[in-house]
């Protein structure tokens, strides 16, 4: 199973039937589309790319063309059950602000980001190269990623902000076995975050 497909399935697994969902950086609408058909969710996608918007409209999804900050500030507190930020945290200018906004408009935030401390990234750094992996496919000169974040970094930020986190461990056998060292073994960090205790499974 491809990594992307695995992530999509994990997200779908986390979200209960009939939830209200906001997908920030929704891309071509894969996740929303599957959530709509298998979980009867309703909600919106936000993306700044016109082709993504067009693709979502083809799928019959509700999408807003704009940047994440702009899309978020319009919603009142607690509008959504889940707010998804997949592979985009490392691209936003004010990640902590975006997270606080996500947890203002939604009960739960699902956040997925490429883990820069993954061992393959570390190895490439050791060899004197900027890391390039399936999760970090860009060259140094064309990457949209402006934040270098690791799973440990994310944990400590959430702790500081008093957020409750639950990490979803990637499915390959090695990282499952060694989940305590996911910062080393996992190519991505995947978290469900909320303000108070009591994250639903």
């Amino acid at each position: 199973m491809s990594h992307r497909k695995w992530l999509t399935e994990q997200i779908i697994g986390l979200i209960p039937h009939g939830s209200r969902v906001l997908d920030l950086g929704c891309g071509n609408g894969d996740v929303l589309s599957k959530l709509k058909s298998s979980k009867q969710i309703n909600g919106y996608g936000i993306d700044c790319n016109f082709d993504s918007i067009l693709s979502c409209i083809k799928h019959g999804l509700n999408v807003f063309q704009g940047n994440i900050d702009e899309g978020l500030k319009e919603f009142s507190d607690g509008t959504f059950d889940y707010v998804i930020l997949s592979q985009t945290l490392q691209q936003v200018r004010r990640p902590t602000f975006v997270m606080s906004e996500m947890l203002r408009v939604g009960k739960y935030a699902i956040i997925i980001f490429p883990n820069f401390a993954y061992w393959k990234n570390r190895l490439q750094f050791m060899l004197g190269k900027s890391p390039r992996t399936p999760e970090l496919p860009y060259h140094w000169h064309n990457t949209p990623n402006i934040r270098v974040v690791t799973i440990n970094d994310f944990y400590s930020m959430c702790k500081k902000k008093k957020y409750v986190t639950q990490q979803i461990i990637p499915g390959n056998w090695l990282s499952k076995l060694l989940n305590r060292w996911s910062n080393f073994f996992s190519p991505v960090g995947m978290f469900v975050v909320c303000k108070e205790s009591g994250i639903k499974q």
Partner: protein
Amino acid sequence: MSESSVRNMQFFTAFTDEPLPLDGGQLLSNVTISYETYGTLNSSHSNAVLVCHPLSGDSHASSLNTPGDPGWWDTMIGENKPIDTNRYFVICTNVIGGCKGSTGPASINPLTQVPFGLNFPVVTIGDMVNVQYELIRHLGIDVLHCVIGGSMGGMQALEWAIKFPNHVRSVVPIAATARLSPQSLAFDAVGRNAIILDQSWNNGFYYGLTDQPEKGLAIARMIGHITYLSDEAMTLKFGRNLQKKTDYGYDFSTDFQVESYLKYQGEKFVSRFDANSYLYLTKAISYFDLYKKYDGLENAFKSSTARFLIISISSDWLYPSKQSKDIVKSLMKINKDVSFAEIQSPYGHDAFLMPCPDLEQLVTHFLGHHVTS
């Protein structure tokens, strides 16, 4: 041969028994609406698309039935085009207050047997939509598949979603706004002043006279045209190029290509448009204010059930993207089915009237997604 017979223009007269109560408080009886249709209404009457025209448009949206006589939206309507006439039954009406077959200031006032002139009551976008609704019912259509239009046409689409929530499945307002900015109000006011201050306008009673308020109407059109383009579009199209000259004339004849173009647009317009209609329609646009009329946008749309696709144009400074986004944000706040896309185009407000692949794709997919039975 008259224009209407060439174009298959049809007419329907509504409010023959009970008059139409207008937003301005007056009553209007025997309201005629001119319209054209393209394509075929299916057996369940579920494939009808109402196309609403912008200020200077009319019911002749497509050349489908009249090859050689271009429609104002031939880029969008026709066989295998975004509003596909193989699939949809397309209706386009001339708005009331207009001058292309629907009741307006140039129509004969039944009480006096002479043209209304300024005795025609001021109409609003809401009034226009009320008359369209009567036509739709007359055509045997209960629910429209879509109401789509740009600029003033987009305002009508928004009113449809508000006024007739049970009779429209989707709406596509393009380059529209829920209300004009003071700057846009100002441009419309200057246009109206140009007409009113033309001596030949004669307080609106110039019908049948030799002198027509052509100068005023041409200037109004020139001002309008500036607002429909953008700085970039004008730079691309004309630059500072001179018109049939190698150097400045050092006089007050036409020097620049952009001057010549506006002059041409103005002159062309007076042969096909009524000055009073220009006053009435720009007044309807200026009065359009969903915030005021419905006490806020969220309140305006609270009963709407249509799916919305709201489209803006990046270089539109007349009804800028922000105004479209404000509508979308209000709809999202109240959990309505809404999507928003911004077309990247240098051509300004009128970009929706030009060939525009992004717009064509958006509309194709949006209309096609919720297929009619």
